[in-house]
Every structure is written in C-alpha cells, then in structure tokens.
C-alpha cells in the first residue's frame, strides 16, 4: 500500500479518534512523523488563552461567560468560546464583532490598544465589501459541502463581481 501523502510505502496505519468522525490514515514513516507532531506554540507569543481566561474570571460572572462564549461572528462563524480555547480569531471582522472583549485583552498583552505604526499607503479599503466576501466564501464552502453546485456557481459569480469592484486601480 502506498502512503496517502506521497509515493513511499505506507508502514504506519493510524486511526485518528480526535475529530468528530473516525479517520483512517495509511502513511510512510516520514509523513506519519509529520502528522503525529503536535504543533508547538510560537515561542514569541505569550500564552494568550491563559491571559484571557484570567482576565475573564476576574471580570465576569459564570452566566456572563456562558452568554459571551455562545456569541458567534456572523461572518466567519467562530464563537467566542472557540477563540478562548485556541487563542486565534477566525476573520478580520472578529476584531469588530468581539471588539469590546478584545480591547482589555490587548491592553493586558501589549500595554496599549492603539496602533501607531505603519499604515496602508492606499488608505483603508472598502471594509464592507471585504466582509461580504468572507461571508460569501463561507457560504460557498457550505454549499459545496452540501453538493449544491447550482448555488455554488451563483455565489462564485457574486464573489467574482465583488472582487472586480474591489481591485485596486494600481
């Protein structure tokens, strides 16, 4: 049997139980090593989830926390609970949607929450249409998963139209 990721013979047969469904993998030693390697946290980044949970315990009641955790970004669909667990946001709009919660966190991590560095030379782009593009791409992902290709074609055309409108006249 060949490795599922390269041409070498598969000598590792892994059944992954960590996701929602069983995942059977047949890999060569090199690919298996890569797959089994747990990604190390970036050394340069402070442990964000620790800072976050400490801050929230101090400022919120259990009920507040539950309510906040259940909030989902309407654009990318990430919940605050998911962000709290992984320490990573889903899309640029999260900075707006979870803005009130993020501000104290940013102050805690950086000692400040205002950017004073480099700015885009062309000025800010059309944020609304960019957010719409992210939303459409999420919708596209869902309809493809449901094999609704007719709808996918319509969404693709809308994405292309928006992209054309957004393209900078450089």
């Amino acid at each position, binding site marked *: 049997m060949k490795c599922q990721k390269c041409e070498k013979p598969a000598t590792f047969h892994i059944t992954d139980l960590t996701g929602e469904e069983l995942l059977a993998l047949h890999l060569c030693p090199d690919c298996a090593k*890569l797959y089994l390697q747990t990604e*190390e946290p*970036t*050394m*340069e*980044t*402070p442990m*964000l989830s620790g800072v976050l949970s400490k801050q929230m315990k101090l400022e919120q009641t259990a009920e507040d926390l539950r309510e906040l955790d259940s909030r989902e970004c309407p654009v*990318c*669909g*990430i919940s605050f609970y998911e962000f709290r667990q*992984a*320490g*990573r*946001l*889903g*899309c*640029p709009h999260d*900075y*707006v949607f979870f803005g009130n919660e*993020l501000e104290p*966190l*940013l102050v805690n*991590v*950086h*000692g*400040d*929450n*205002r*950017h*004073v*560095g*480099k*700015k*885009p*030379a*062309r000025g*800010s*782009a059309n*944020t609304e*249409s*960019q957010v719409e*593009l*992210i939303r459409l*791409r*999420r919708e596209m*992902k869902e309809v*493809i998963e449901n094999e609704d290709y007719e709808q996918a074609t319509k969404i693709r055309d809308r994405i292309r139209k928006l*992209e054309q409108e*957004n393209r*900078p006249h*450089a």
Partner: protein
Amino acid sequence: MPEPQSFDANSDLHGSPSSALSRNQGGSRLTSGIEVSSRLSLSRNLASYPFFDASSDLQRQEISHELLHSSWARKNCNRYRVVDCRQLQLAERQFLFDLQAIVGLPLSVVITEADEGLDSAPASMLKETSNGHSEELQSPAAGLPPDPTAEPAESNRESLAPPIFRTVSLVFNHEDHLRIDIDSRGECLEEHWRLASHIDDQFQSELDFAFHPTFGYLTACPAEAGTALRASVLVHLPATMAMGTHTDLSNRLNRWNVALREAFGDPSGGDFFRISNLATLGLTEAELLDQVKQAVGLAVQFEQEARAQWSQRDLPGLKREVHRALAELLTLDLQSKDDAVRWAMIRALSRMRLGLHLGLSSPAEGAVIASKFQLIWLKRLLDLAIAKEDYRAASRLRDRIKSLGESA
C-alpha cells in the same frame, strides 16, 4: 578551510568589517561575538479571506495563488531561489541557520536546485502550501528584492553554496496568510525592517491586507496585531549563565516589555538566548526595534562584565572547559536530530565560541570544527542533488567534499 576571522559574525554580513562597522555604529560591540544572528518577522492577512485556521483547503490555495501571482512576485521570481520546504521543515531550517551563524561558516545549507520561476511551480507545490507547508523565496547574498545587480539564478546554481548571510523567506499560510521572515548574522534589525517593509509595500500596491484604524494590521492571534512585527536577536551569554546574573538580566528586560528566552529548548539552561519584543501595539516599528536593540545592548554589557569576572576568578578552569568542549565536538554525532545530542553539541559549541573570543583556544582548532560542519552540510547538499537527479551539481559537490576531506 575557513579563516579565523569568519567567527566575527558581523564582519561576514556585508563582506568587510569596516562596512559593517559604519552601518552598526557600534565598534566595541562588533567584535564581541555576543550577538549571533537576528530575525524579523512581519505578518499580514488578506482582507477578504478568513484567517488561516478558519479557512478551507480551497481558500488556502486561493490565498497562495493571490500572493504568488501578484505582479511583484511574478516580476521578481527570477531573482529568487524557490526553496522547496518539503525537504527541510521551517523549524529545522531556522535551526540550521542559527547553527551556521554560531559555527561562523560562510556557507548556507539551504540550497536546492529548484531555480524555476514561480510561474512554473508545480501544482503539487501549491497544494503543499495550502496544507500548511511553506514556500520560500531566498535572496542571493544580501540583495534587496528589486536590486538590478542581483546575481541571476543560474550563476548561483553554478556556485552551489554561495555565501548567503541573509535569507528572505515568504511563508504562506502558516498561522497567517503571509509572513515575511528575514534572518541574518549579527544584529541588523533596521536593515531587515527596511527590506520587509519594502516587500510589504510591493504586495500592498495590489493586494488589500486586513487593517483596522485602531488595532492596526489584523492577525489571527491578537498578541501579534498592530505592527504584526516580531524582532529578535540571538545572543550568546555563557558567562552571564555561569556567573548567575541571567535572572537579574531577565527581570530588567521584562520591565522593558522585552522577552529573554532560551533559544534551543535546552532544559539544563543553555547559553543561547533570543531577545524579542513582546508588544506589537502602542509603539511604532522603529520604537519596537529600538526597544530590542537597547535590550541587546544591556545583555552585551552583562555578558562582557561576566566574562571579565569569570576570567579573573578561574581562568585555568575556563580553559579546561573550552578544551573539553573542543574534544567533545570531535566525537559527537553532529548530524544527530536527537534533542539530547543537539543540546550537548550546542553547549560544546558555546564553550568553543567563548574560547575563541577570549583567545583561550587557537583559531586553527576552531577551524577544524568548522570544516567538520562544512563537510556535513556539503554531504547534505549532495544528497539533495542526487535526489533531484542533478548529476552535474552532485559531481561538483563530490569534488568539494573530496578536497575538504583532504585538507582536513
């Protein structure tokens, strides 16, 4: 065989020590050898896509495509070497870069024969990229991207192992959509920033990166938002560790919002540390670099004082340690990927480097170790050349290995 002065990491940077001196304006620090290498990372995300973790495989392919096919990337691809990271993982590459800087060899191991332009990059490479692997563009010897005098790829290919002292990597879809990584020997963060900002400007002339008027450049991890810049310098602090003043140094740096972290994960402490900025909001890029540079200056001061103290207190003991390390390096398996062996190697290299800088061992002894490393890296390049069926390159490498083996 490398000349002894190749251990002066800063003099390697731009060809001559005097040019490096005028750039850094820090004559006394240049010969200390305490600053080993510097790294600057600048992260960016496309405004109209979800962040990496939340994006699908298809979206990741689209992101790679947008970045790779921007007119700047297409225009400059023939000046760069496309390094296939499937053979060398990113962390392993960075380890090798640091190791080369520590040993002080004018040689880069990160050479492949893949000199094709980005347009001809195989689809599988894009697919790999979308799966979280990285793809890199490596600049020829310290050249800025639009440098018209940059060597064409073919001549680099001829020389096989050109003396590359700065590597520029464009890493796609690794935590953020784009990360511009610049590594070099010595401390030259300001030059790195100018280059990274220039590359960023080129991308921004046709792509919109996620930016918020208050929070600055937006990244998947809020700890990076704002400037999205991480600057770090690898410093060699053996005497600070031996004299026990590192805790005091670490506390003082923490008050400046700068981190001092052991560089290679050695549980017994280690002598190499990375000094980097913690905050990315509230300060400009220049202020952040200044913060790190000041911290490095303090670390250098601590180390110089500790070295003087150590030499005064126990010079014979220090000499013994240096000679024991040199003997150890001759017997250790320098190619091992085992962490314990690597830590032992780094500890021995640390003593060797210290001995050379304090004049406790002869440059010839250091050169023997350096050529041992050079031989290993050339053999690694030979393996890569054979795997790529580039027999011309393999033949040249065999000749070099033979001549090095004879002279050693």
